[in-house]
């Protein structure tokens, strides 16, 4: 069986500074794969390259059997790859409902869109209660819910979540992680970037540890969770 997403020897540079230095990994349909690592490891750069916001300097990305070489970002969404960016980036002056509708920008099935908006409200009831409110007035955790709901609106084959727990209270973080677990159980394929390694690895089928632009360790979520070096470096144990 071929992978849904296959990344081979990907390199990305900002000017002369190489942020991603040749990484390879794959995501199979139905899997949750996580990239963990410290700030500046190249995780966000990797996701931004996969969704077309950055151009790779080298390497091959194959998504759903098609090469993504220089495909512009707005066309990559159409192929079924949705990206919930780091820092949430909801549209602050549009309402919650308008944000969700924008997530379905490329879809034409009005009835289906309405059904999926309802699904997002079922998943995150607080969004439904505030549907007519400007998204900028939501709390950080609520904005994260909106960003995830919005990414799901495109009915993606692969959902990429960048730091969904960043800056959230412990309770809100648990809630977001529980939602990711729920999406996983519904069969959603997820590529998750997280600094909270404990939470990410407990959910993930596969994990990759990134350090300054390279993947230094790979394994199942379970394996990495019990790996000595991972425990030392990312789970705060000595």
């Amino acid at each position, binding site marked *: 069986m071929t992978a849904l997403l296959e990344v081979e020897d990907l390199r990305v540079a900002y000017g002369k500074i190489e942020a991603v230095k040749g990484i390879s990994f794959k995501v199979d349909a139905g899997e949750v794969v996580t990239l963990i690592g410290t700030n500046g490891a190249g995780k966000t750069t990797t996701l931004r390259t996969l*969704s*077309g*916001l950055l151009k790779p300097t080298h390497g091959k990305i194959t998504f759903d059997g098609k090469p993504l070489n220089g495909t*512009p*970002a*707005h*066309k990559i*969404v*159409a192929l079924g790859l*949705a*990206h919930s*960016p780091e820092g949430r*980036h909801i*549209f*602050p*002056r*549009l309402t919650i409902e*308008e944000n969700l*509708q*924008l*997530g379905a*920008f*490329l879809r034409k099935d009005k009835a289906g869109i309405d059904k999926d908006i309802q699904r997002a409200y079922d998943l995150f009831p607080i969004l439904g209660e505030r549907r007519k409110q400007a998204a900028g007035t939501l709390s950080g955790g609520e904005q994260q819910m909106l960003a995830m709901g*919005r*990414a799901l609106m*495109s009915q993606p084959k692969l959902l990429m979540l960048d730091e969904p727990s960043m800056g959230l209270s412990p309770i809100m973080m648990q809630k977001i992680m529980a939602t990711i677990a729920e999406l996983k159980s519904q069969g959603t394929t997820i590529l998750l970037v997280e600094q909270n390694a404990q939470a990410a690895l407990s959910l993930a089928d596969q994990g990759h540890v990134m350090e300054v632009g390279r993947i230094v360790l790979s394994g199942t979520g379970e394996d990495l969770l019990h790996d000595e070096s991972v425990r030392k470096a990312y789970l705060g144990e000595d």
Partner: protein
Amino acid sequence: MNTLPQQLANGLLLGSMYGLIAIGYTMVYGIVQLINFAHGEIFMTGAFGALTVYAYILPHGTSMWAAVPLMLIGGAIVAVLVAVGAERFAYRPLRQAPRLAPLITAIGLSLALQEVVRNFYPGADKARSFPSLDTTHDLGAVTIKDADIFLIIAAIVCMSSLAYFVRKSRTGRAMQATAQDPDTAQLMGIDTNRIIVIAFAIGGLFAAVAAVSYGLKYGNVDYRMGFLMGLKAFTAAVLGGIGNIYGAMLGGVVLGIAETLASAYINNIPGMQQLGGQSWANVWAFCLLILVLLLRPQGLLGERVADRA
């Protein structure tokens, strides 16, 4: 007639013209954070596009009822092509450049457009006469011309369609998203290059409507007409809050009325007898701009600039 209602009407009319042009500044700024200083010249080319239809395409003696719509189409085609061409060939290559580069390009483009029209359009180095709509209507306290009626109707139709388009249409929603967060807009599947082109095109279209109104009202056009009108419209856009389409129209009207009232009445103030009259109108308009920049830099309806880091 120099009564207050007449002065208010004059200011409102002038301001509607500023507002129509200001839309071009404000939409482009809202989406790409670029001040298109060549926009005044896009307005000017729109006037010459409309004049071309009247002077060289339509047979002599065509009724104005038939001529004006065709002139609008001609002006719009020229202004939209110039605006979209400027985006494609002058500004897009500089999208990633430091901000000063597109600004200087805009000033250069503005001069280039003036010179092209001056050198190549027959008789454009001096004022060329434009068909005017001079029939007057006495409405009691206010007297207005047909050209004024055209202008006010055009402004209302343009502004309400734009407001509807931006709020309700799919493309309008995409424009709002692009203005608020261009990268994330792309992640939604929005082709932001297309949205930028549409913003320039709408600016060109509205400038053409303003240009035809200008010609019909004043009866002549020349290659320099875009400079001062552009500067005033830019002032109106800043006054209303640049990036905000309602602000552009409000800023236009406030500026038009302020300028008209100041030039009509300021010489009644003891000690300021020398400062009245049309020749001082621009001074008062730009004084208002300075005041706004000092007291409310985000403009009347503007959002805080810190909104976008």
